[in-house]
């Protein structure tokens, strides 16, 4: 049973410890940690410009995080967000190119559906391999990442290449008119709304719907789920599908809202940061939103940290790595603080 007080307290505590360790890391590079943190803050949330930067990065993170969150709720640790992004982006580009002249509404709708469908099937395959052949889903999803990237490179450099894109081999463009625009006058594309809606929607499903309850049972104890006669296979595959669909959607957004075409830029590492967001959020779709914004902010400030303090881009990876490990270690503390729980019954 979710004990919100405990979750809040331990999460915040863990983040505090993480940031202290990050501060020590900054100090070890010869910088004043306070200065670097201030730069981090400025680059992430210090101005409207940085906020926009942050939110644009947060949007795909929300979606790729869901790719880990949904399977995790049924007990599978999937890190295939990267691959689903690539597959979704690539396939929706193909569809977008084919329907290029049919008007933006048709194009975008088709691309969104394709991205979600193909991404979903990609991760559903991971779930199927685990269920039917007992193949470790973490390893298989990671392998599929590499395979997806290889297929992307093969097609984009080969038969799909737009000859005009010599420097950065890409497919043909879907056309300016067909792209997803920005919200109002900002530089934030509507993909952010897709991300937030996906998180909220999936939260409602996971916490308040019959399907979500069934998923909790399957993830909690699959034997009990079978005893209750629940359709275990369907639930497992659907959760994988939904997670993959979210990541595939992120791929579509990369094409339809950012680049306008599919290229190696799809392989941007959102998948891996998404994993961290998922664990930070303790696999709660709603909590994904603030953590995605936090991680987006850290990534957004990478450039500023480089310019202001001469810290290389890998700094962001180190920060993320430290946070990840502290968060995992904090799992130890759940259930240890008796005063956070209602008094337990003595064993009868």
């Amino acid at each position, binding site marked *: *049973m979710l004990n919100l007080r405990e979750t809040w307290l331990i999460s915040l505590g863990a983040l505090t410890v993480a940031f202290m360790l990050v501060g020590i890391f900054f100090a070890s590079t010869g910088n004043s940690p306070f200065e670097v943190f201030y730069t981090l803050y400025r680059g992430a949330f210090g101005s409207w410009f940085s906020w926009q930067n942050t939110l644009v990065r947060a949007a795909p993170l929300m979606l790729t995080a869901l790719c880990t969150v949904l399977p995790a709720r049924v007990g599978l640790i999937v890190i295939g967000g990267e691959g689903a992004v690539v597959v979704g982006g690539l396939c929706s580009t193909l569809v977008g190119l084919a329907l290029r002249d049919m008007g933006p509404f048709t194009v975008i709708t088709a691309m969104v559906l394709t991205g979600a469908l193909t991404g979903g099937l990609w991760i559903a395959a991971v779930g199927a391999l685990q269920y039917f052949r007992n193949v470790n889903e973490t390893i298989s999803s990671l392998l599929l990442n590499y395979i997806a990237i290889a297929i992307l490179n093969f097609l984009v450099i080969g038969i799909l290449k737009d000859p005009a894109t010599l420097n950065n081999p890409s497919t043909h463009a879907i056309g300016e008119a067909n792209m997803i625009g920005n919200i109002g006058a900002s530089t934030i594309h509507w993909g952010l709304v897709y991300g937030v809606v996906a998180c909220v929607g999936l939260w409602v499903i996971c916490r*308040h*719907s*019959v*399907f*979500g*309850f*069934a998923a*909790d*049972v399957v993830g*909690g*104890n699959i*034997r*009990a*789920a*079978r*005893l*209750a*006669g*629940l*359709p275990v296979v369907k639930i497992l595959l659907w959760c994988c599908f939904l997670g993959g669909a979210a990541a595939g959607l992120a791929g579509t957004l990369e094409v339809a809202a950012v680049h306008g075409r599919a290229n190696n830029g799809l392989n941007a590492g959102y998948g891996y940061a998404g994993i961290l967001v998922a664990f930070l959020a303790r696999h709660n779709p709603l909590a994904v939103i603030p953590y995605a914004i936090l991680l987006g902010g850290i990534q957004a400030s990478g450039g500023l940290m480089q310019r202001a303090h001469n810290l290389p881009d890998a700094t962001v990876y180190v920060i993320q790595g430290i946070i990840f490990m502290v968060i995992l270690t904090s799992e130890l503390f759940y259930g240890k603080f008796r005063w956070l729980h*209602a*008094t*337990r*019954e*003595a*064993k*009868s």
Partner: protein
Amino acid sequence: MNQDIVLEAIDIGKVFGDVLALQGVGLKLQANSVHALLGENGAGKSTLVKCLMGYYRPDSGQIILRQKEQVIDSPQQAARLGLGMVYQHFTLIPNMTIAENIVLSRPSLPAVIDWSKEIRALQSRMADMPFQFDLQRKVRDLSAGEKQKVEITKQLLLDAEILILDEPTSVLTPTEADEVLEKIHQLTRSGSLTVLMITHKFREVMRYADQVTVLRKGRFVGAADVTQVNPQMLSDMMVGGESISKPPAREAHASFQARLKISGLQVNNDQGLPAVKGLELEVNEGEIVGIAGVSGNGQKQLVEALSGQREVTSGNIFAHGEIFVSNQRSIDKHKFYCLPEEPLKNACVGNLSVAENLVLRRFNHPAFVYWRWLLNRSAIRRNAEKLIAQYKVRTSGPDQAVSALSGGNIQRVVLARELAQEVSVLVISNPCFGLDFKAVADIRGQLLAARNRGTAILLLSEDLDEILELSDRFHVISGGELVYQTTPAQADLNTIGQYMAGH
């Protein structure tokens, strides 16, 4: 006879958190005797023994070994002092051979192991052992009885002088149990061994033990020579004269409608070998049909097949004459419910709350949802509050995680869930394992009441006494098949024992 007291425990106390496991417990173990340690589940027998073996340090009291006070820090030190223990859950390594298991359990091994030399040495020592086996067999291929014998031999080969046995015969057929206890008894008589035996079977105490010590709720109740007690006295000491509600009387039933029918059932185990072979069985309305047997003869796989946790290889399960497939619709239609053993592992989701577990089968029924998909959590809560009160589940509230409850209360939660509605067929396995007397009496009362209401109950149990007490008629399962059928009134223990052992 005034023999030396080789091991004495004085005034032992042990606390775990706010649970008082032992208080003022004493034990006097005479040399070369068989001493029984008796008590119901939760009485503290395991804790006491673990203190003797160095797993725990007692918070108070002393242990006196061979007239010298000892502080026993670790199992290794206990072994050096000549104490050896055979656990209820075996500590043998399944994927290794018997020889490897025995050699590796030696406290002092050379840095480089010459296996052929070690095995030769082992074989020559085996000549003096009470039990014989092929040292190259892998442990996972052994039966429970064989594993038990290997465990005992292992301790003897480690030169244990005081052997502690934890429920040694719980996984043996009556015949095997007699064989093992007889050998143990001989070893003590020949002057080479002293035995402390945890048990709850009066028959064994009366037949094989020289002295008995009784514990209840962590306290010492009494100790005596076995010649001076009888089973009724032992029972009184164990239970303390607490009034246990008498189970409802059995009512006769007129109809003989077969509610559950199993036909030609074959179920394979994890290794792909058949664990249940061509099983045929019928359970009628308003009767309790028991299946008795020693663990490992296919009971687990049978229950798993009936509860949908394991695939059926061939054969059929019929409920009310229709083929039964374990999905929610069929289960609801035929009111076919299950109470498997180890409820936390098999029938509950530990990290979900009591309320959620209580509604595990019905969370998508109209009573608990809005618009067919949105959960009505307040209805779920109200349902839980009602059942918690009705079945007297001790919990801090409907929102407490089920894993925080004690074993007995987890069982009550599952019982509440399964019996709270009309039940037509109930499959139940080892319901009372590990529970105290009161919980056991509760559950048995519930089962008989359900039977009287017409439920067809299939009861699998490794405790023959339980089968004899509850069944209207029962079978014996051995090697995955039902080999014998009889009623409690006509039961002859010897015959049953033989069938259990596969003769």
